[in-house]
C-alpha cells in the first residue's frame, strides 16, 4: 500500500504540474493571440481535465494512508508513529491528520476537492475559471512537491518492523478531533479559491464585479468551515484540556483566528465593491492577505516557529513555506502593480456618518485585531532577535489589547445597520439610535444590580468591567438588529396582512443575504454574552475521600466512589459524584483521567453538566501519590453554552445568506390575490 500511495502522490504531482504548465501556456496563447499546434481552448481543457484527475490521484493516496492505518501496516513510519492496534476505528481516520505528513496530505486532499468542484463548474465563466484553475494548480504543485520530496507520509520504516505502533496522541482521541481538523482545513484551504479567482481576475483584467459574485459562495463556505473549525477547537480545548477555559491565545489558535478576521473583513467589504464599485484594491489585498495568513497558520503549526501546546506536528519544512509565501507575495505585488489601473474605484465614501464608512471602520477594526494577534504571536521572536530576551505573550496581553478592540467592533455591528447609504440625517440617527441607547444603559443598571463589580478591593477588575461593557453593548446591538427585523416585518405586514412572524419570515426570504447576515450578527452577540460570562467563573479544588463533599456555586458534589478501569487502549481512573442542588439530588457526574497504553500519555475526560445559566465542569486531576485520594477540581462557568448556541446561529445565518432570495415575482405570487399590492411596494417591502 505504501508503494501505491507513493505512486498516487507522484502521479498527482505530475498531473498538477501539467495543469499548471498547460494552463499557463493556453492562457498566454489566448492573451497574445499567437498560433500554436493546438488550439488554446483545447489545451486549457486538457489542463482542466488534468486538474480533475489530480483529485482522483490524491483521493487514492489518502485512501492508501487510511487503509494502512486500518490494516496496522507498521512498515510505514507514519503509521508506526501515529497509530496502534488497539486504536478504535473512528480514530484510525484521525491518524491522517495527527502528524506532519498526514496533515499535509489532508491539505492536498481538501485542495484537490475544491479544485475538483471548481473545474467541474467551469462553464459559469470558462476563461476566469481557467485562470483560477491554473493558479490553484500552482498551489497544488507546492503541496504535492512537499509530500513527494520533503514529507512523504509513505516513507518506509528503517530496520525491524515493530509489532505495534506508538499510538495516536491522546489529545486527539476525542470525538470532535475526528471533525475539527478537517473543518479547519476546509476553511483554510477554502480561502485558496477566492484567492485564485481574485488573482486570476486581476491578471486578466476581468471586467465588472461578476467574479465577486462567483466567489461569494466559495468565500462564505470557506468562512463557515473556518468558523466551525475554530469553535470545534474551542469546544475540544474546553472538554479535553481540563483547565476550565476554551481559548488560551495559543499561537496555533491565533493562527486560525487571523485569516478568519481578514476573511470576515473581505466578506463585508466586497459588498461595497458589488454595490458601489468601491474598495477594489482593498478587496484584492484582503483576499491575498487572507490566503497568505492561512499559509502562515500552516507554517506556525508545522514549522515550530513559535512554541505552542499544539506540538504534535512540528518539523523542518519551514523553508518550503517561506519560499512559497515569498513567491506568492511577489506574484501578488507584481500582478497588482501591472494591473492596478483596472482597480480604480467608481465612487468614494461621501460622509463619515454613512453605511459605507461603517463598512470601512468595520474593516479597519478587523484588520487592527488581526495585526494585534499577529504582533502578539510574533513578538517573542522579535524580542529575542532585538534584545536577546525571549518573553511570553499570553492571555493577559491579549485580554488587555484585543478585548477593547473586540468590543468596539461589536458596537460597530450594531451601529452599521442603523446608518443609511451615502449619508445619514440627524433625524434618522436620533430615531434609530434611541432604542439601542436606552437598552445599553438599562443593561448597565441590570448587570450592576446583579452583582457585577468593576471596582472592588480598591482596584479595577478589568474582567468584570469588560463583562459589564460586553453585556450592555451586546443588548444594545441586539436591540438594533431586532428593530431592523421588526421595522421591515412591520412594512410587509402592512402590505400583505400577514402576522408579524410570517412577515419577518417573508422579509428574510426576500433578502436572504441581508437578514441572514443579521442572524449571523445575532449569533456573534450571543457568543459575546457567553464569553463575557467568563469574568464570573468560580472554582474549587479539593482532595476527596469517600462521601466527602465539594461545594461550588449552588451545587454540592458528594464523592460516592472512585475506581479504575482498563482496556486495550488505555487505563483510566475515575470518580463518581452525586450532585445536589437545594438539598435534592439532581444527577451524577463521572470525571475521568486516562493513561494511554501505547504512548503512556495522560488525558483528562472532563464531566460537564450544561444548563443555560452555567456549566458545572468537573475535572479529575489524579490521585494524591501520598494517600491515594482523588483530587478533584470543580468549576462553575457561567453562560458557556451561549457560545455554542451562538455558533449554531452563525451556521444558520450563513445557510440563509447562501440561499438565494425569492424573486419579487415569486414573492408576489405567494401573496394572497385579494391582498396583492402594487408591485413597487410588494417587491421587497421597500428594502431594495
Amino acid at each position, binding site marked *: 500500500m505504501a508503494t501505491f500511495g507513493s505512486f498516487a502522490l507522484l502521479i498527482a504531482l505530475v498531473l498538477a504540474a501539467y495543469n499548471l504548465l498547460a494552463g499557463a501556456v493556453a492562457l498566454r496563447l489566448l492573451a497574445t493571440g499567437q498560433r500554436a499546434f493546438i488550439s488554446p481552448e483545447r489545451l486549457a481543457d486538457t489542463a482542466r481535465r488534468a486538474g480533475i484527475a489530480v483529485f482522483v490521484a490524491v483521493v487514492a493516496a489518502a485512501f492508501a494512508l487510511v487503509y494502512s492505518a486500518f490494516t496496522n501496516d507498521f512498515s510505514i513510519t507514519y503509521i508506526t508513529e501515529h497509530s496502534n492496534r488497539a486504536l478504535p476505528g473512528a480514530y484510525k481516520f484521525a491518524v491522517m491528520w495527527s502528524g506532519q505528513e498526514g496533515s499535509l496530505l489532508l491539505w492536498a486532499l481538501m485542495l484537490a476537492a475544491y479544485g475538483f468542484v471548481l473545474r467541474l463548474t467551469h462553464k459559469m465563466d470558462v476563461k476566469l475559471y481557467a485562470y483560477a484553475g491554473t493558479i490553484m494548480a500552482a498551489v497544488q504543485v507546492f503541496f504535492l512537491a512537499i509530500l513527494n520530496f520533503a514529507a512523504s507520509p509513505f516513507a518506509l520504516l528503517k530496520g525491524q518492523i515493530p509489532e505495534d505502533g506508538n499510538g495516536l496522541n491522546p489529545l486527539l482521541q476525542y470525538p470532535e478531533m475526528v471533525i475539527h481538523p478537517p473543518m479547519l482545513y476546509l476553511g483554510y484551504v477554502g480561502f485558496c479559491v477566492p484567492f485564485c479567482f481574485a488573482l486570476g481576475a486581476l491578471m486578466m483584467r476581468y471586467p465588472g464585479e461578476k467574479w465577486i459574485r462567483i466567489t461569494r459562495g466559495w468565500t462564505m463556505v470557506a468562512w463557515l468551515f473556518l468558523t466551525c473549525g475554530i469553535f470545534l477547537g474551542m469546544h475540544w480545548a474546553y472538554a479535553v484540556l481540563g483547565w476550565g477555559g476554551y481559548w488560551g491565545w495559543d499561537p496555533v489558535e491565533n493562527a486560525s483566528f487571523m485569516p478568519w478576521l481578514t476573511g470576515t473583513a473581505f466578506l463585508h467589504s466586497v459588498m461595497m465593491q458589488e454595490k458601489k464599485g468601491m474598495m477594489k484594491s482593498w478587496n484584492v489585498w484582503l483576499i491575498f492577505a487572507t490566503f497568505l495568513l492561512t499559509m502562515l497558520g500552516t507554517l506556525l503549526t508545522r514549522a515550530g516557529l513559535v512554541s505552542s501546546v499544539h506540538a504534535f506536528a512540528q518539523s523542518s519544512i519551514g523553508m518550503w513555506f517561506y519560499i512559497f509565501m515569498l513567491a506568492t507575495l511577489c506574484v501578488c505585488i507584481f500582478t497588482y502593480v501591472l494591473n492596478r489601473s483596472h482597480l480604480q474605484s467608481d465612487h*468614494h465614501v461621501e460622509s463619515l456618518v454613512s453605511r459605507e464608512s461603517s463598512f470601512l471602520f468595520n474593516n479597519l477594526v478587523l484588520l487592527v485585531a488581526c495585526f494585534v494577534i499577529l504582533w502578539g504571536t510574533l513578538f517573542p521572536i522579535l524580542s529575542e532577535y532585538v534584545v536577546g*530576551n525571549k518573553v511570553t505573550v499570553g492571555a493577559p496581553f491579549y485580554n488587555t489589547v484585543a478585548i477593547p478592540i473586540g468590543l468596539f467592533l461589536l458596537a460597530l455591528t450594531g451601529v452599521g445597520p442603523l446608518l443609511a447609504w451615502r449619508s445619514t440625517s440627524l433625524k434618522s440617527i436620533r430615531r434609530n439610535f434611541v432604542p439601542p441607547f436606552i437598552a445599553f444603559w438599562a443593561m448597565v443598571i441590570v448587570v450592576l444590580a446583579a452583582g457585577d463589580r468593576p471596582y472592588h478591593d480598591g482596584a479595577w477588575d478589568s474582567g468584570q468591567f469588560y463583562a459589564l461593557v460586553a453585556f450592555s453593548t451586546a443588548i444594545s446591538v441586539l436591540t438594533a438588529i431586532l428593530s431592523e427585523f421588526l421595522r421591515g416585518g412591520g412594512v410587509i405586514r402592512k402590505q400583505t396582512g400577514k402576522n408579524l412572524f410570517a412577515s419577518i419570515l417573508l422579509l428574510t426570504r426576500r433578502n436572504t443575504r441581508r437578514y441572514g447576515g443579521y442572524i449571523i450578527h445575532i449569533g456573534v452577540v450571543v457568543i459575546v454574552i457567553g464569553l463575557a460570562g467568563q469574568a464570573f467563573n468560580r472554582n474549587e479544588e479539593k482532595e476527596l475521600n469517600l462521601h466527602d463533599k465539594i461545594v461550588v456555586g449552588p451545587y454540592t458534589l458528594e464523592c460516592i466512589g472512585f475506581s479504575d478501569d482498563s482496556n486495550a487502549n488505555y487505563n483510566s481512573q475515575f470518580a463518581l459524584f452525586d450532585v445536589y442542588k437545594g438539598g435534592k439530588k439532581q444527577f451524577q457526574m463521572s470525571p475521568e483521567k486516562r493513561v494511554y497504553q501505547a504512548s503512556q500519555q495522560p488525558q483528562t475526560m472532563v464531566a460537564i453538566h450544561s444548563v443555560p445559566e452555567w456549566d458545572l465542569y468537573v475535572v479529575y486531576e489524579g490521585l494524591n501519590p501520598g494517600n491515594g485520594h482523588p483530587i478533584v477540581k470543580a468549576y462553575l462557568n457561567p453562560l458557556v453554552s451561549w457560545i455554542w448556541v451562538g455558533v449554531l446561529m452563525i451556521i444558520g445565518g450563513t445557510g440563509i445568506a447562501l440561499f438565494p432570495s425569492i424573486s419579487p415575482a415569486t414573492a408576489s405570487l405567494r401573496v394572497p390575490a385579494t391582498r396583492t399590492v402594487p408591485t413597487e411596494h410588494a417587491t421587497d417591502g421597500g428594502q431594495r
Partner: protein
Amino acid sequence: MRGRKVTFWLKAGQALALAVAVCFTLGATSPESRFTNLNHKLMCTCSCAEILGECNHVGCTFSTEELALLSTGLDAGSSDSVILDSFVAKYGAVVLAAPTKQGFDLVAWIAPFAVFAAALLGTILLIKHWSASRPQTEPQMAIPEMDAMRERIRRETDEDGGFEQ
C-alpha cells in the same frame, strides 16, 4: 417646553450616573483575589504553556513550587512588583504571562494602540478628503413631478429606515 425636556434628560442622566456610581463602589472584598490575580500574571514553567493559576497537572512540581513561592511572597507582605521581580530573577522573563511595561517590552503594548490610532485617524482623514473633493452638482431646477417622486421615495424608504443592502 423645550427647556423642560432638556431639564428632564439632564436629571435622568444625573440619576443614571448616580446609580451607576453607587453600584460600582459597592464592591465585595475577596481575600484570595490578590493571589488569583498574581497567579494569572505568571506562567507555569513546566512547558505546559498554561497560566500558573490554571495548570492542572497533578504532581506538577513546577506549579506547586511557584504557587508556594507566591504564597510566601504574599504572606511576607511584599508588593506585587517585588513578587513578580522575584519570579523573573528565579525563572527568567518567560515566567511572566505578558511583557513588562519597560524597555523594549513596552513596544509590545504601544504598537497595537498606535496602529489602531493611526489607522483610525487615517481613515477619518481619507473620508474627509473624499467628501471634500466630491464634485459639487449644480442645484437642479424644480420639477414638480420629480419633487413628488422624491418625497414618495423618502416616505417609503423612511418606513424601513431607508436602508438597503
